[in-house]
């Protein structure tokens, strides 16, 4: 049977991984290529790279890094950040990305997901959504979680899947950084509405949080950044622990 996946996320700004890192023994602790090598050896099932630069120079640097990673790391690579057009899809796919994650670009241009799914296939299109509770309702937030779009998150996500998103990253702003577990209430609500793979993001602080996540129906992957970067949770021991809990893991 297919395994559950553990996915480290690397936020890249001006060619460097941002968010706290604490890697001993690496020549450059914030070099994305070094970190990708480290995670590949550590047993990550997939890597997600987010380009959080705004400048053209930063973008060029990012695609250069992506190409370098894709030349030596042969696991699935998902790329997000600044994906607004089919040309952006093309740019990162040519550099070795396997899947492309859209967020604000899909909010600004609702035609982006169907067009990309048509051209590259559903399996290539990942819809990433930042969700926050407002008056007890799940709402879609934009601009890195700063702006309430006024859209109902569950409706938005369901529509995105109908339009051709083959996978979802659900990032809970409410649990992000709290390190007290994934937002299972939100994730269950999403799983009840769609049948594509769900990647949970935001809130993991310890290995038990991942075990709890995978006990919930419809959860395929757990994504985190700083807890992996700081080695608060290490990937191989995490996967061994999850396997000992009866969860299928690639080891």
């Amino acid at each position, binding site marked *: 049977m*297919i*395994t559950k996946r553990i996915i480290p996320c690397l936020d890249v700004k001006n060619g460097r991984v941002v968010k706290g890192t604490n890697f001993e023994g690496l020549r450059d602790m914030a070099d994305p290529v070094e970190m990708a090598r480290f995670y590949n050896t550590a047993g990550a099932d997939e890597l997600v790279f987010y380009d959080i630069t705004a400048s053209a120079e930063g973008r060029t640097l990012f695609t250069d890094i992506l190409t370098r990673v894709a030349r030596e790391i*042969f696991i699935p690579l998902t790329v997000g950040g600044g994906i607004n057009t089919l040309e952006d899809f093309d740019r990162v796919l040519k550099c070795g990305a396997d899947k492309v994650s859209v967020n604000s670009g899909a909010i600004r241009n609702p035609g982006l997901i169907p067009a990309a799914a048509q051209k590259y296939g559903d399996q290539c299109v990942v819809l990433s959504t930042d969700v926050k509770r407002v008056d007890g309702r799940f709402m879609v937030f934009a601009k890195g979680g700063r702006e309430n779009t006024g859209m109902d998150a569950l409706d938005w996500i369901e529509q995105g899947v109908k339009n051709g998103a083959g*996978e979802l990253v659900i990032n809970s702003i409410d649990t992000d950084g709290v390190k007290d577990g994934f937002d299972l209430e939100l994730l269950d609500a999403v799983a009840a509405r769609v049948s594509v793979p769900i990647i949970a993001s935001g809130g993991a602080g310890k290995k038990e949080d991942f075990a709890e996540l995978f006990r919930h129906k419809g959860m395929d992957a757990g994504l985190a950044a700083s807890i992996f970067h700081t080695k608060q949770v290490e990937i191989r021991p995490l996967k061994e622990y999850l396997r000992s809990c009866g969860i299928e893991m690639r080891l």
Partner: protein
Amino acid sequence: MIAIIDYGVGNLFSLTSSLAYLGLESKVTGKPQEIEAADRIILPGVGAFGDAMDKLNQTGLVPLIRSQAEKKPLLGICLGMQLLFEKSCEYGEHQGLGFVKGEIASLAEDLPDKTLKVPHIGWNALHIRRQDPLLRYIRDGEYVYYVHSFYGKNCAESTLADSEYGLTVTGVVRSGLVWGTQFHPEKSGDTGLRILKAFGEL
């Protein structure tokens, strides 16, 4: 040199990168003389069967691929493996290259458990059913990366390895000098690299 057949389908970045990483020289080509000069051939592919087969036929390379496959190892990957079969029922019935006896069928239609997600995407354990030089560097149960909605069936006599996903998914086939993998070795981490390394030594 490995000739990777160029017929306008799919992104070959990872495949060419993984071969280069292993020190195996390769070239994406549609030129008959380069395919003849190669010591082995890879048939890649993503997308729909009928569309890919049409594109392959349009290159005029099919007779050459057939004659070359009698002399040197050929590896079909993902849709490239499916094209090796006799036929597919993906969006109507289509004839394949016919190297491997069997057919390509829809996972969604055949899965007894309809709650399983299609496409079958992700890491799945590969069970070796028959020892083969292509699998000499991997152990039974290693994980490989699949992305597909259709699968090979009725091909027991050619099956070297398979995976379980509510039914038996054909993972690796062989007929003579023709091999095929449903999964992507170029995306299957170290396990995939060892399969490609073995292909380079066949």
